């Protein structure tokens, strides 16, 4: 078992992540303007930017779903209880004792069990909730009569948005819990991260050119 710097976030995955981040921030800002929580931009602009950002994000998600399915990366998100408790214990207790993170990244499992579970919940619950309610909201006139369901749709949409905002806060905070904030963000920029590899994995990845030529953990 050796630790190597490996390309774990492909170009599409990084693009997906950062484009999604930008769109979520744009949607959050314009959405709260539409909801009337701030008036830094006018309503018409807010609605316009919100709508186009939402359409772009849905398109991005369609590509991402396709990517997950075709590349098999969906396996990273299969929930597991193995190690879940250890990670939870670390964040709730060990981190204050100066312990090291108990999870070691492996090539076929780039997220720790708690992280994978959180992302899975985001992708299967919050994201569908916000885009289904969002499409219902946007296309209200196509399905609703005078029955007043818009309030319900809007409440689901808003609640999902607030939950996503809570997720973003926790997500950014957790970047500060490792060696450094930068060390956590860097893999999503360069694509490379330290991963424990079996010998077989290492030789396979070396042959495919997916190991960093230079960098921490690369052979001297």
């Amino acid at each position, binding site marked *: 078992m050796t630790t190597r710097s490996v390309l774990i976030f492909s170009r599409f995955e990084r693009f997906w992540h950062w484009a999604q981040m930008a769109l979520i921030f744009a949607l959050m800002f314009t959405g709260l303007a*539409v*909801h*009337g*929580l701030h*008036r830094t931009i*006018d*309503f*018409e602009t807010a*609605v*316009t930017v919100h*709508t*186009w950002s939402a359409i772009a994000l849905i398109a991005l998600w369609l590509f991402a779903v396709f990517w997950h399915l075709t590349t098999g990366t969906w396996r990273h998100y299969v929930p597991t209880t193995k190690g879940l408790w250890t990670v939870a214990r670390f*964040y709730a207790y060990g*981190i*204050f*004792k*100066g312990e090291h993170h108990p999870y070691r990244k492996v090539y076929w499992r780039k997220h720790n069990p708690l992280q994978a579970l959180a992302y899975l919940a985001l992708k299967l619950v919050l994201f569908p909730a916000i885009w289904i309610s969002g499409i219902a909201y946007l296309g*209200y*006139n196509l399905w609703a*009569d*005078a*029955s*007043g369901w*818009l*309030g319900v749709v*809007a*409440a689901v949409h*808003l*609640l999902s*948005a*607030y*939950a996503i*905002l*809570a*997720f973003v*806060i*926790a997500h950014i*905070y957790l970047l*500060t*819990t490792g060696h450094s904030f930068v060390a956590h963000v860097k893999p999503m920029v360069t694509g490379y991260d330290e991963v424990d590899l079996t010998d077989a994995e290492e030789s396979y990845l070396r042959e495919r050119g997916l190991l960093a030529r230079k960098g921490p953990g690369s052979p001297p």
Partner: protein
Amino acid sequence: MLKMVLTGLLLVSTQIALGKSAVDVDMNFRLVKEVAPTLRTESSSTADHTKFEALQGPFRDGPEVTRACLSCHTEAGKQFMSTIHWTWEGTEPDTGRQLGKRHLVNTFCTNARGNEGICAQCHASYGWKEEDFGPAGLKWEEVVDAGDPNNIDCLVCHDRTGTYYKSPLTEGNEACSVMFQGKPPIDLGEAARNVGSVGRENCGTCHFYGGGGDGVKHGDMDSSLTRPTRPVDVHMDADGLNFACTRCHVSETHAVAGSRYHVTAKDNEGTGKPGERRNAATCESCHGLSPHPIDSVAGVKLNDHVDRIACQTCHIPAMARGGVATMTDWDWRTAGRTQNGEGFKETNYTQGDGTHRDTYKSIKGSFEYGEHLQPHYAWFDGRIRHTTIDTAFDPAEAPIAINRFGGSAEDPNSRIWPFKEMRTVQPYDKGNNTLVYMHLWGDDEDAYWGNYDFARAIEAGMAHSGLPYSGEYGFIETLSYWPITHMVAPKEEAVACAECHAREGRLAGVGGFYLPGRDGRWVDWLGVLLVGGALLGVLGHALLRFASSARRRAS
């Protein structure tokens, strides 16, 4: 006649003595300052009426002109006499109550019935003689309903010289002689030879002056629409589209589309097939059901509004924008004050065009005006319910809506409409809890506009119509609502989204539906829990980490 001239002279001299303008716009149609006809550019007539032999005159009187008109337009008399312009009558669909100026009580001069001597100068007729009036006013059934078509006044609508005018049918009391200021006599032949499709000033002769003066009643109709600028009305803009009223109020055999009694609050038909819709004055009958261009998100989204928001709600940002004020409050309680035994008036409101408006008149009471007013918004299904002369109400529920509108968010045929809201304090029958007819106009001892005695005027007004009256009157606060549909602004001046999509916006008082930007505040509290919880958790966690690592370093 001598009396009229003398009082007229007296009035002019008093006005000069007081340094006031001799022009008093809000008393009578005859005082319209500008008489040149508006231009109708879209006429497609195939006849030149100046060449018609029958119109060469000379004409002794109006009916003689009408006889000439009807000699060619053989069916026009019968057609016109079946319209509300002639009958002044209609029925409320679900209650069967009698509507129309012949019956209704309003919140202005309160009733035309019994006061036709002045009010029916807006009835397109002539020829009523002394014997056509009884104690209850004009004998509608006998002389109007069974009337002679030759008594139709064609010219008041179709004169295109701008010189035609009407005067009150009867003379009235001395106190009202201000109305008889001199005007050049009408050249009936000239008017007859210059007939045409109606121009804005023809309709305006009556409709701009409803309620007893320029712009008093409606808030969206006043003399500024004779020659409006583009900001005042994008369609009637005299230098632009220059629409005549009939461009929207299309007519067929003299039946004119568009009614305030039965409003098309929501048009589901749109433009229809070419030439099909001759009975619609709706915006949709020209602009269709998806009027906004769909080249932007905003445009698509605006089209989503059409089913619940009347076009007028966004496209008429304010009422009375043409420099003419509309009346907002009328208090009859103060009427009847005199100075040295004479009626008087105060003129303490100066409107946008510089004209002074009466704020007090002995014959009517006190008034307030407004310009550039934001309308009142409400769900509206097109049906106006009236408090008629025979409708009893509970005075404890005042203000009493003299015309209230139906509609709600749950009703798919209702839309949010703009209204002018008028507040009045007017006499009512304290014993029977009904409205009253007042005998205002007449050269007799009972007419309020002369004796300043409500008790007598009400007694007479009710008795003349054979209505029960308890003998005791009081004053009650009333409201009336006037759907706003004219003075459509250019699109760049339409109401912006955030004027409604806001917590305290224009629609703050309109309920029954979810309005983004206004509603859903309870969700924010859950949001505060979620987001605040995350922030607190993160902050607590960070503090603990900081403290524990500091302790570790120290040890």
